[in-house]
């Protein structure tokens, strides 16, 4: 066994709290499979037989019960639980399982969906006897409107600065813009060894690393380094290692070498934001050859399900429904005359008659009342959107009154309904589309 695989599946998904407050991130459905399936599948495809999964109790339970995961994943899962509140970083987690690590390791994050040829990363690792090799890809521009997000993408997002040598493989420098307030500082000796450095900014760290065992040992001995110790390590170390000598010793005698494989094409998503989640859901179905409609689903013949949509097992789709470019999860019930476009319906959702749902995300076990009209909304787990009356309160609290004709609710634009521990129901009404403007005064 050359490499041990470690899957990091304990992250809370802090950047998409709306989705993860009661579904742990690894279990979020993407294309009707839990997110964790994708990295597991990635590992299985290249022939790993065993994987160490670092996760929380909750996910462990789900892993052992989820039938589909069990049938799909043949690998032996060595599940290590850590406390949910511990807020462990990658480095902490690696320290936690140090005893289990016998060889070099391949660390994968549970939110990675990619079709990368994994051997590219491993080959780099092998070929250069590298300390670390990692995967990066171009940052995606998410084009879809995200529920609850005001306007376009938040401007001025911090970019990662990644410095590679002229071959584009050797990682020389890595830092976030936020850490570079006083400018980029490079040692002259690095420049002397790598006289040509490419600095790229539009890259996404896929959180897939090949690491030498010694790195884990290093982490164990350096207890001070905290959360992003791994990356820090990469940064600090890669800065004083080197490659390509004129006449001198290979790698200039440097002992630490970090390499990066940058995907020029292919798919690579890190599902750590709502936008990425939505995007991934749109793209992922194209990857499988599975039939878009699960055999156990009951789909009425008089309904219209687009070929770009997928319907999960034991769903019930009634007459006169139209589903386009959407994912419908396991055991969801869609009643008559419902129109769903561009949306993600998770598991166990019930949608009553006559609803019109567009560009929205509806989480597990939500119930959408009769005749709801939603655009770019996010409905949290177990939320009930009542057909009438009760929701008036919701609207008033948001400072709007609704002119409702025919007792139909118009939740136009980007509303988010989430049951959060902190506040019971929150409604953000953001950009008003011209069409919806009439329904609010």
């Amino acid at each position: 066994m050359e490499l041990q695989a470690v899957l990091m599946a304990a992250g809370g998904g802090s950047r998409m709290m709306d989705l993860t407050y009661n579904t742990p991130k690894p279990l979020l459905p993407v294309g009707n499979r839990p997110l964790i399936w994708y990295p597991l599948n990635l590992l299985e495809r290249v022939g790993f037989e065993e994987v160490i999964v670092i996760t929380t109790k909750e996910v462990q339970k789900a892993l052992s019960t989820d039938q589909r995961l069990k049938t799909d994943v043949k690998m032996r899962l060595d599940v290590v639980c850590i406390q949910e509140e511990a807020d462990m970083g990658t480095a902490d987690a690696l320290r936690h399982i140090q005893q289990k690590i016998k060889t070099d390791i391949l660390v994968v994050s549970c939110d990675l969906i990619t079709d990368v040829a994994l051997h590219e990363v491993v080959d780099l690792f092998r070929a250069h006897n590298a300390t670390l090799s990692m995967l990066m890809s171009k940052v995606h521009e998410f084009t879809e409107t995200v529920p609850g997000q005001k306007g376009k993408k938040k401007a001025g997002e911090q970019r990662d600065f990644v410095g590679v040598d002229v071959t584009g493989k050797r990682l020389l420098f890595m830092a976030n813009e936020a850490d570079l307030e006083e400018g980029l500082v490079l040692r002259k000796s690095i420049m002397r060894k790598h006289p040509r450095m490419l600095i790229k900014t539009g890259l996404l760290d896929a959180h897939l690393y090949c690491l030498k065992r010694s790195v884990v040992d290093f982490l164990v001995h350096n207890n001070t380094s905290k959360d992003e110790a791994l990356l820090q390590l990469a940064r600090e170390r890669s800065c004083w290692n080197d490659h390509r000598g004129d006449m001198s010793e290979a790698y200039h005698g440097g002992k630490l070498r970090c390499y990066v494989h940058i995907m020029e094409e292919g798919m690579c998503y890190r599902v750590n934001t709502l936008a990425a989640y939505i995007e991934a859901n749109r793209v992922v179905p194209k990857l499988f050859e599975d039939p878009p409609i699960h055999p156990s689903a009951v789909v009425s013949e008089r309904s219209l399900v687009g070929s770009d949509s997928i319907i999960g097992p034991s769903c019930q789709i009634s007459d006169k429904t139209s589903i386009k470019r959407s994912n419908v999860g396991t055991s969801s019930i869609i009643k008559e005359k419902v129109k769903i476009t561009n949306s993600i319906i998770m598991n166990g959702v019930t949608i009553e008659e006559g609803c019109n749902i567009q560009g929205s995300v509806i989480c597990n076990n939500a119930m959408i009342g009769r005749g709801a009209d939603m655009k770019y909304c996010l409905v949290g787990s177990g939320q009930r959107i009542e057909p009438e009356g009760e929701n008036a309160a919701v609207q008033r609290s948001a400072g709007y009154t609704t002119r409702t004709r025919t007792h139909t609710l118009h939740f136009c634009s980007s509303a988010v309904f989430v049951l959060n521990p902190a506040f019971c129901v929150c409604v953000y009404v953001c950009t008003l589309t011209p069409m919806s403007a009439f329904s609010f005064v």
Partner: protein
Amino acid sequence: MAGKAGKQSRPRKAEKDEEEQPLQAVLVADSFNRRFFPISKDQPRALLPLANVSMIDYTLEFLTSTGVQETFVFCCWMSSKIKEHLQKSKWCRPTSPNVVHVITSDLYRSLGDVLRDVDAKALVRSDFLLVYGDVVSNIDVSQALQEHKQRRKMEKNVSVMTMIFKESPPGHKTRCEDDDIIVAMDGKSKRILHYQRAQALKKLHFPMNIFHSGSDEFEIRFDLLDCHISICSPQVAELFTDNFDYQTKNDFVRGLLVNEEILGNQIHMHVTRDGYGARVSNLLMYDTVSSDMIRRWIYPITPEANFADQEGQSCTHSRHNVYREPGVSLGHGSQMEENVLIGRNTVIGANCTISNTVIGANCVIGDNVTLDRAYIWNRVHIANDVKVKQSVICDNVEVKHGVVLNEQCVLAYNVVVGPDITLQEGTVLSMHHPDEEDDEDEDEFLSDDDVGYSKDKTKQKVFNPAEVGSEGKGYRWKSSSLDDTEEDELAECIWGLALNPDPESDSESEVSEGSHDLGSHPASPELDDVKVFQNEVHGTLQRGLDENISCDNLVLEINSLKYAYNISLKEVMQILIRVVLEFPFQQQGAQISTAQYSSHLLPLLKKWAPVFKNYVKRPQDQMDCLASMEEVFLERETHWAALVKVLMSVYQLEILEEEGIMRWFKQSSTTAKSQQLRRNQGLLKFIQWLEEAEESSEGDE
């Protein structure tokens, strides 16, 4: 769309006119520095021979072959010589495809002056090439020119200059340490974002704003050599006029990059892989370029090409890059090993070994001479048994029997050395005395051709036989005397900066330094605000003392510090007391005696009494004040005797009142040491005295 097309057609016509205009070049035949002193005292740098051809001829050849049709040669230093040379050369023949105009002025002091003059005389009509008179190159700039024009067409007047670089990674011979530049550029548009000389830097610093240009790919290159060839638009000359403080190209580039947002001018770059381009900016580069020339790196410019079309210069090229001009005679047993160029009518004696060497015309070389990397110019006489390693020997030098020249020696014009002397590494000999005044030189140069004259002149001063040998003539130049004349370029000497002999070792040390950084960083305690505040207060008081600042202003300053560091009033007082009490230690050192201490402190207390009074108002303040005094003195057991004097003084200055002192004294002290302090003899007496005074005052009442 139609309207747009119509609009486009007219400027296109104008552009066509522009393209049809002949390509012009500005050649600056002056270095505006004294790097080649003392050699360039007799001959301007542009006329120094490199592989037996004047350097300016290489530059003109390069310009002509790249398609330049009109060249303006600007000269200042010894302009008459340059003019004379050019008039004799092929460039001034009627058949020359490149029309050369010589413009001379004694007023040029820098590249900036030249370009300002270009602007004032409106010499250039469109894009032009800017080169120095000591550039040797075979680069075909037409592609770069095309790119430059394209850019100018796309965005009118934004890109003003395209600099041409050659790839030359660290360790490459042509990478000269004083042109050790680092360039940051936009990966796609090839726009220069940052340009810096890195010679003395250990860490390279790039400001963040250069990365905000909207691109997501940048390149930082440390493997480029500035060929000192740039394609400039006429705007460059205008910019030099507008910014009269720009002296050099470096000023210009840096100024433009810094003010990019304001002026909106950009500089782009073109990197050539195959071409050769280098500026002979010091003798090390002279050495490198000469040997590259002989090794045919600058093809088609090679010694046998005789591009300068001078009579008698046609030489033959044979195996191992040995070139011989006509009339060379080689003695029996002499070997020309490799990379040798020998000028016409030179006579070489028997049993000589010559390698990597250039010998000029009409030289006479004796028997048993070893030459390696020697650059021997014209009419040089070398006697028997001479050894020369990596040295430059100028015209008319006489090297007598048995002389050994070690690395990096320079024998300037007309020097005589020897016999039987060994010159140390880096010796520079010249007929000019290093201390000569500048204006004196100039007189001398006018009649410089006359060797006899300079001989007469040199008689007045005595040559040091230890420096030049018993029959020698010449003065030794010390690098330090060079330094005095160079203000900006102190470290630069004729041979260029010493190349870093072992870059590896230096990186090793940096590694250890780096790991040290790593280790110490978390460990080093950050100065907390209180500590900083204390330092600031100390500084303020010190300044107050030095500059005699009034106490009111001191209070103001301390108060503002208090807000800046968010210090409570109580802490302010504690720190103030501590600073003042420790003031004499800070000034006089910690070893001073108690008597010295108090004699220093008491005047200070008196001086700053108003400051104290400002902070010590309430009874509680007095207690705090005393407590911090106690604290300070507890740390310095040896100076306990001074405490009484301090207390006495503050009492008399009415900073503290007797009740406060009494209360403090009677306070049940917690530690054994502070109890001990209170049992101090002097203190007891003071307290007793206080009590008595109180009683007596009460009695009076």
